């Protein structure tokens, strides 16, 4: 773990259910370690309890409920340093935080986001769902509905934050916000009639991630 990493290796960890604020702190630690070359590129999976987060380009008008109402409903609310507008995380959603050094891949933020979309699209294909891009609207869409949100932060070409894929999320919770500031519906694998196990989806995500970004996987 401590040796500077020479080859491009991806190490995956699954945090299970963890509060958003805790993973925010953990990400900051991982980013620093990655900057110093103490760890390999990471793909961190986590499932958050209900939380609404606001990106750097966020507009308060896209949060439809007041902070008090959110708090009463047991939904956390945070401002964060990722790109994008407001989003919701909660049970049933697989959140992936890739901590990558893009200096070892491509120093290109567009290429990075498009590659994340490719990972999601390939994964959905494995479950017989056709995910698509929507020009001008980052993320992955099925028909007109968003199934995966993407928001990224980059510091010295080290990435953090990432994607949130709805597997069997209770979509009711999205009513509190205008996801990404776009008045378009959200969906999940479950809503599309696919009853997929989270482990199954994570395994597919990991393998597609390794394929798209060209890794030898470590575990």
């Amino acid at each position, binding site marked *: 773990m401590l040796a500077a990493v020479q080859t491009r290796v991806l190490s995956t960890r699954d945090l299970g259910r963890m509060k958003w604020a805790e993973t925010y702190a953990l990400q900051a630690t991982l980013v620093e370690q990655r900057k110093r070359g103490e760890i390999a590129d990471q793909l961190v999976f986590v499932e958050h309890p209900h939380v609404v987060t606001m990106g750097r380009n966020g507009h308060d008008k896209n949060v439809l409920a007041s902070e008090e109402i959110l708090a009463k409903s047991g939904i956390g609310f945070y401002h964060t340093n990722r*790109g994008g507008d407001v989003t919701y995380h909660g049970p049933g959603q697989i959140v992936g935080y890739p901590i990558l050094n893009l200096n070892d891949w491509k120093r290109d933020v567009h290429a990075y986001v498009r590659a994340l979309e490719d990972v999601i699209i390939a994964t959905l294909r494995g479950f017989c769902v056709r995910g698509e891009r929507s020009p001008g609207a980052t993320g992955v869409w099925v028909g007109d509905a968003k199934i995966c949100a993407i928001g990224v932060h980059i510091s010295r070409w080290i990435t953090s934050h990432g994607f949130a894929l709805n597997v069997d999320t209770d979509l009711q919770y999205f009513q509190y916000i205008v996801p990404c500031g776009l008045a378009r519906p959200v969906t999940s694998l479950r809503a599309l009639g696919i009853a997929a196990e989270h482990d199954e989806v994570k395994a597919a995500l990991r393998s597609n991630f390794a394929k798209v970004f060209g890794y030898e996987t470590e575990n």
Partner: protein
Amino acid sequence: MTDVVMPQMGESIVEGTLTRWLKNPGDRVERDEPLFEISTDKVDTEIPSPAAGVLAEVLVEAGKTVAINTVVARISDGGGAAAIAPAPVVQAAAPVAPPPSAPVTAPAPVAAAPAPAAEDLGPLSPLVRRIARENNIDLSTVTGTGAGGRITKDDVQAVVTKPAPVAAPPAATPAPAYAPPPPRAEAAKIRVEPMSTMRKKIAEHMVHSKQTSAHVTTVHKVDMTNVAKIRDKAKGAFQAQYGFSLTFLPFVAAATCKALREFPILNASIDGGNILYHSDINIGVAVALDNGSGLIVPVIANADEKNVTGLQRSIVDLAARARSRQLKPDEVKGGTFAITNFGSFGSVFATPVINQPNVAILGVGTIEKTPVVINDGIAIRSICYLALTFDHRLIDGALADMFTGRVKQILENWTDSVL
């Protein structure tokens, strides 16, 4: 003095939005210390300072979108430099990548309005170009509000959302090579609804199957009287014991499994130049979803190992879960042969489409009491048409009829009352 510029964050990126300054004018910054944040396409990036010193001037305020390489700030080296900061230079957004100079000799495409010279407009982001193209906007008529008068996304979108001036000349319509969409006045008579994902997949699959296989359908008339008698005798107790009713379908499925063991090529699939014989018999059963909203084919794995009761149980379970969208992905995979029961909707016989990559599908017509001639006498029998669609690439007609004939024979001679 060190210029701080908007960095290029990727090959196709020509501009960036400065979201936040992390330092104020007059603040001391270290080399590589985060100085400001920019945002492009859902990615928020911290930009480190290129030099140590004092942030002397901020030239681009937060919230503005500027072209790459635009000077956004200046850092003076050493102390007190802020005092001798030169008067702000007239800042024109440095046109970064010089716009691709179109060859002058290239003949302009003949169009109603002359295409504006791209050079006049300065660097444009691909997004701006795309929006303009898709909405037929002449960019030379758009007023840019970006740095140096550049046309930003917002500028072009403002034009898109503005109602077109009445006097706008009609766009020259080239003679379409295809039938033009109906004129606007007709629009009210058509309701446009995007296909559901399932519908798109069904459509794809059906066309794919028709393009893949050489579909031929053969129809055999089957006397189901024996089976009907056994079913009539058993159905009351069956419903009481198991909680679901006994239909004809599991009898047909059981007979099909038996015949498939004898004609394994009907349980095969084609892989390029090879024939894949499947040792398991996994029967897909087509299930119509409510209100014709879709079709799904869940699979009874190892169907030949089940008796009539077991088959009926699987059919009821899979159909119910298909309708409530609770099927697991594995339960719609791996079918080696399919049965479709259009008879339940009153169809006498139909020509089903093969469920790829299978090579045949058996359609079960409705079962009706029919007068038939037996030994020169007229009798009332329960008659059903079985329609087998087979892939003529692999299965010859004679073989298809031998197989269907065998299913017929098993059903007509059904005597086993143990289900």
